[in-house]
């Protein structure tokens, strides 16, 4: 892959993971929900898209159904999960993501270990350059829609209530905010957006395999959000771009530098160091939380 195609590929990934980051920002940044099972809903969207596209269902129907199923799964998971304390919630949804991955890995309807091929909406026959540009256009339209939705929510009385629940849920509930409703809705919406990203991911790559949905995907998204700045939509997109460039950059560098450790392991070490560095020295992320702007 030439440098141009490689760069365009990075932009595609920034778009897809930008959507996942916005979804985690809605859940964690604004509502304070530690969703460490993000990959589960990403997987749900991707596999729903893959299964339906194999049946010949049109692109937009695949995407919409993927979003709806991810939202429903998110809502169902939220009912028991949101009764848990934050740390146990994190463990429960992390386990849920792995359970879902092991299910698609073992079941024939999802292609098992070999996964499934997906028919792309843009034909490969044109050229790799055009194919990537078309995907960038498509993905960034969805990214813009997600951005607007989260931005509107964040800057409304609804977003203010979510932030209040994040800060002190007992006080927020005593002031009339039904925390269960707000949290379940945030979880559902976040899952829907992650499902959308999953569908676009499957469509772009032209296949899905269980190995694409390891827990590391969730952790990468968390690094993006923490680096960019939770509760700041521009921040999390910046985080998505920086981490993606860092990830791809280290992939290139490792081919040219002799390292004493496995280059893939070094990447994980660097990711770990990065997250510790952020939490110690810049806990608010690169961009601090955006203030609520309603009408004033």
């Amino acid at each position, binding site marked *: 892959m030439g440098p141009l195609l490689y760069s365009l590929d990075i932009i595609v990934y920034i778009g897809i993971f930008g959507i996942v980051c916005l979804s985690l920002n809605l859940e964690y940044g604004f509502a304070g929900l530690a969703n460490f099972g993000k990959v589960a809903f990403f997987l749900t969207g991707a596999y729903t898209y893959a299964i339906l596209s194999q049946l010949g269902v049109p692109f937009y129907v695949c995407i919409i159904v993927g979003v709806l199923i991810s939202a429903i799964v998110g809502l169902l998971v939220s009912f028991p999960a949101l009764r848990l304390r934050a740390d146990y919630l994190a463990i429960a949804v992390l386990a849920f993501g792995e359970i879902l991955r092991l299910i698609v890995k073992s079941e024939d309807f999802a292609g098992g270990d070999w996964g499934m091929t997906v028919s792309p909406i843009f034909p490969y026959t044109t050229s790799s350059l055009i194919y990537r540009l078309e995907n960038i256009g498509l993905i960034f339209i969805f990214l813009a829609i997600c951005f607007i939705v989260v931005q509107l929510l964040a800057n*409304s009385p609804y977003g203010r209530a979510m932030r209040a629940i994040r800060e*002190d849920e007992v006080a927020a509930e005593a002031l009339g905010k039904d925390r269960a409703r707000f949290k379940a809705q945030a979880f559902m919406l976040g899952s829907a957006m992650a499902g959308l990203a999953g569908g676009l991911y499957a469509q772009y790559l032209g296949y899905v395999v269980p190995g694409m949905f390891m827990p590391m995907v969730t952790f990468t998204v968390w690094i993006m959000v923490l680096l960019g700045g939770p509760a700041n939509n521009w921040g999390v997109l910046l985080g998505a771009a920086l981490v993606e460039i860092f990830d791809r950059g280290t992939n290139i560098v490792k081919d040219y530098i002799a390292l004493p450790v496995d280059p893939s392991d070094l990447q994980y070490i660097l990711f770990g160091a990065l997250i510790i560095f952020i939490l110690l020295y810049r806990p608010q992320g690169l961009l601090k939380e955006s203030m609520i702007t309603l009408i004033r």
Partner: protein
Amino acid sequence: MSLDVNHGGICGLVGPNGSGKTTLFNTVLGIHKPDGGEIYFNDQCINNLAPHQIYDLGLVNAFQIPRLFYSLSVLDNMLVAAREQQGDKLFNSLFLRSKWQKQEEGLIEEALNILELVELEHLALSPAGELSGGQRKLLEVARGLMAKPRLLLLDEPAAGINPVLGKKIFQKIEEFSHNGTAFFVIEHRLEILFEFASWVYVMNKGKIVIAGQPQSIIDDPAFYTIYLGEE
């Protein structure tokens, strides 16, 4: 125990530390579940209601140790408490912005008026985390007033603030009480409470031991034994 708080006016609750005053408030608000007995608000049993449902009935609390939303501005802290907001529904927040924005303008004006009463108007756009201890206390009280309660439970509203401002808060509370809001107030600053309260309950070891008008409490020698530990 059995006690009543009537419409309008200020009802006081006093007692030594650890007598169960704050626990009583938290139980009434649904934060703690009662072991037994029944709590009625406007003839409706509220034992099994969630705190947000209790708020919907008009029963609101201002916490003893302020529980503010520290990264939100002072004004946003006030607005969270506002009643029947159209914009805090998911659908409305996305698709009916013009509808709730109009309501929001009125709420902001209302919030600024209350903040003016407690002398926090100039800090409206500052994060609540930047307020001093006394200012946090004032905001906690102001937030309770913003909720337009039928009954507002105030847990030591004058604690940690200067006596002049403490008295001013009670004067404002009295003004609000004339509009039909009832106040049930825990307070250790007895000189202020007794000036404004129309009825006072004295609590000790989880029980109401004396009840009456402030003057009758002051005249009761048992009060000093319970409250101050001396004859």
